[in-house]
């Protein structure tokens, strides 16, 4: 899972060279072997890729912005990954409230936090029934925006979030 995500991110960042990753431990923590030794952890590897691609703005443009990005990245790996059904509800509820007046997770522009949160939330959102999608309307709006963000989606299936009378399941 994490590995697919990494390769999607590489494509998104337009990196020419595709890295080979391994994983360690039962939680399949991704590892990238680099010249400075192994880099361990999804966030570490992703931040590295962003720097490789010379897109530091994706990690935040000011101290505050960087802290925000950091926080939502951390939220993704600690709260979203591996969450139970009950925890998923809390995650969606909280994000829905948070995104009420926001377009992106951190600040006013797209960051790595949006990309990874989109990848991480995808399995949760796919399973939502239509009425639940309506319930978490802010998350859905943000999610739909992200899945149409240029070159981001890659390995994931599009989720239909249209709110009209024809009810369509999210699975394709």
């Amino acid at each position, binding site marked *: 899972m994490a590995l697919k995500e990494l390769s999607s991110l590489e494509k998104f960042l337009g990196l020419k060279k595709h890295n*080979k990753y*391994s994983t*360690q*431990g*039962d*939680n399949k*923590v991704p*590892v990238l*072997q680099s010249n400075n030794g*192994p*880099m*361990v*952890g*999804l*966030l*570490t590897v992703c*931040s*590295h890729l962003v*720097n490789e691609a010379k897109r530091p703005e994706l990690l935040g443009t000011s*101290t*505050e912005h*960087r*802290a*925000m990005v*950091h*926080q939502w990245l*951390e*939220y993704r*790996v*600690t709260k979203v990954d*591996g969450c139970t059904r009950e925890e998923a509800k*809390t995650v969606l*509820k*909280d994000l829905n*409230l*948070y995104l*009420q007046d926001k377009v992106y997770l951190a600040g006013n522009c797209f960051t790595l936090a949006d990309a990874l949160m989109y990848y991480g939330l995808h399995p949760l959102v796919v399973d939502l*029934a*239509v*009425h639940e999608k309506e319930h978490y309307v802010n998350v859905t709006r943000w999610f739909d925006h992200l899945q149409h963000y240029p070159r981001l989606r890659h390995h994931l299936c599009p989720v239909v979030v249209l709110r009209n009378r024809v*009810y*369509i*399941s999210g699975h394709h």
Partner: protein
Amino acid sequence: MKLYISEGNPHCLKVVAAVELTLVQCDVQCVNHEERVVPFLSRPALPALLLPSGGHLFSSNAICQYLFETSGRKPNPLINQWLEWETTELQPALLQALHMAVLQGKATEASKILQGPLSYLDQCLSKGTTPCLTEESVSVVDVVLWGALHPFLSDSSPALGEWRCVQAWFERLAGEEACQAAVLKVLPGKGLEVLKPFVQRQPAPASSQRRDPQSCNSTASEAEDAVRVVSEEEMEAAALTWSRGLTACTEPPEKSHPILPQEGRRNLLLTSALPYVNNVPHLGNIIGCVLSADVFARYGRLRGWNVLYVCGTDEYGTATENKAREEGLTPQQICDKYHAVHAEIYSWFQVDFDFFGRTTTPKQTEIAQDIFWRLHERGFLLEDTVEQLRCEGCRRFLADRFVEGGCPHCSYPEARGDQCDKCGKLINAVELKNPLCKVCSKTPIIQSSKHLFLDLPKLESQLEQWLDKSTAAGDWTPNAKQITRSWLRDGLKPRCITRDLKWGTPVPHPDFKDKVFYVWFDAPIGYLSITANYTDQWEKWWKNPEQVELYNFMAKDNVPFHSVVFPSSLLGAQDNYTLVNHLVATEYLNYEDTKFSKSRGVGVFGDMAKDTGVPSDVWRFYLLYVRPEGQDSAFSWADMALKNNSELLNNLGNFINRAGMFVTKFFEGCVPAMELLAEDKTLLAQVGWELRQYISLMDKVKIRDGLKHILNISRHGNQYIQINEPWKKIKGGDQDRQRAGTVTGVSVNIACLLSVLLQPYIPTTSRTIREQLNAPAACVSTMLHAGGSFVCSLPAGHAIGTVSPLFQKLEADHIEALKKKFGGQQPEDEPPVKKAQKVAPDAAVAAAPVAVNDGAVVSGADPERAKQLMQAVAEQGDKVRVLKGQKAEKAAITLEVNKLLDLKKQLALAEGKSAEPTAPQKGKKK
């Protein structure tokens, strides 16, 4: 800027320290634990920082990093990696440890949980060149880790143990004024008590792993899986071991029969539960007993122990008699026929018995009768009368499942002799109203008959004494201990050992001359008699507890007979019998999330495995990979294909093949000279460590966990090749070429080690690898000697053989076809009666459901299964209702409805009814 903290919340420690250290201007306010500061979070999250922009930071690490950056420190990637490690690896362990220490008072166990992360931290500190983690002075990483660990490390708790570097680092941090101020503010008072109100509010930590059901019971702590940093000393030690090469050790002598216990060696007697002769074993049976014991027997032989592995078919009993009547043969003929089927299946699975016998032999009679008389003489048998149903038409007593009648509790007319399918209550067969013989439909009569009972209460204290010793000294699996304890806790009752049957070991007592021994008394004696058929000197194994260690392998349902009942018989017989030292019981293996069922044709049975086209080694590998060690697991086709393609093909096979191919292609088939660099030594140390783990797990019969370490070794190897790229270096200058040589040489030696470690699991492949590498025989004994040592067994100049790929990809469509074939959807067009008639050992037919609708045979009904299905039907019904309520897509509803109908059909079958009635019922409703 405003920082909200709460007293006794360990996460607040680091942020307060960070404020003190960075001197960032910030108003700190102490609030209640439950105060919701961050408006959009439904659970209270403290510490929280209200930013000048009005936004909130609620992650303690983000706050710390923000504070440090505000004070002018530069962010760097190393900091990110440490902070990620802290949140994803250390914090989950800390939370669990806090729970244990603060709420359960288990301080020692709590510190055990922390050993992994602490050891990692210690190694990083010892390798680093600066006194702090990332630089000379205290950085955000130091503050964050100090704050996290403070509750455990502050009063030189046992957790610190031998981690010297951590200790020095921690003391330095604790000396910082900022840290001391933070402790005063956040954790006033002593010890962990102050954390109690906080910990109580945290959700109980899900024990270590999340979500992944397959990887639950590995005792190797997660920390061992985390980056293991190798120290200088380890590297040098590994290089030294490596340089020793093969000792002139003699290959363990070829097996020469009969194998007998020898003075001065470890003598292991292995048994696996005797499979019942007229069932074709399914995969669960195979992994539960014979395959597990086979792996351990092979491993024991590699270790140089003196191993005898015996097994055989259990052949006496009603079911055999009945099958014989069905097929028009004598019971003995039936046994002969099916014994051969069993033997063939196990030989296909490469189960290497030293002897595969059977229970219907004169030796069985002799030994069983001897034990019987000894028990009788010593007063351990009781006499009692039992009322039983007897069918005059069939001229025999009716076993519980051969009689049907009205339930005495609910009057359901088709209750069976032991249990009512309608009300589920247990029934004593003589209480049935209007009982009928299921074979001839005549009314049986009640007849009382005298029987003998083993006086278990009288043997109980002796048994308990022995059990205390055996379970403490031996390797009993937890389930074996627990099942045994629960039997003893409920108190033992006398158990009937005789039956009114013909097909069994005759009871020699003149008062009981038309009776035979009950199978539970008789069958375990089969282990002894089978050994006696193997060698006349069987008593050297079975009456020799001083020299022999006995291992019993079985699935958990068999535990009480091996831990309580059989040992009682042997103890009562007082003949210095060898009693079980190590009882190894597996949990159940399910089939694609349901049970194996012969009657419904669900699952793969031993005789069909070879017709799947999947090699025996792959079957072995996968079954051992999902061995239900510690908890139930499931066989899944998709998972088997995945594991074959990812682990066997891409990981193991790929590594071994590449190592061999490099030698062939780049070095004319001769192992090149090797000049070890630090990087190579690190690898040797890693591989050596995995090898030692493998040995210590296998010594304890943790077969599945052992396999994981083998796969880790080839993973290390693949990574090593990937980084060093010998295929590129070989085209370079002299130095590069030499590097390519070293990497190739080390890799091919790892391949040789793998061939040894794999032998117990996949013997054919192991042999192939050794042939391909032309590996010297002595490599086995050298590398698996004592704690295990990874030596250079293929030195420079060694000529290898022809290398070729070891495994093949399992294609998705092939697997899909197999899944369908064994999925248990019964072909509707085949008349059920026909199916019942051809219960033959050949593959295609054995797959067919047995005797579901045929009134003469009862084996189709399965109350346990029915109960489960009833539950499943109810749940599925709810699901469908919910879907309909949601007006879900029609296709989705239809899909779930079909599942429901299928479940209902299965339920009907499990209840022993014909599958049809569901449809008309539905019609009536409308």
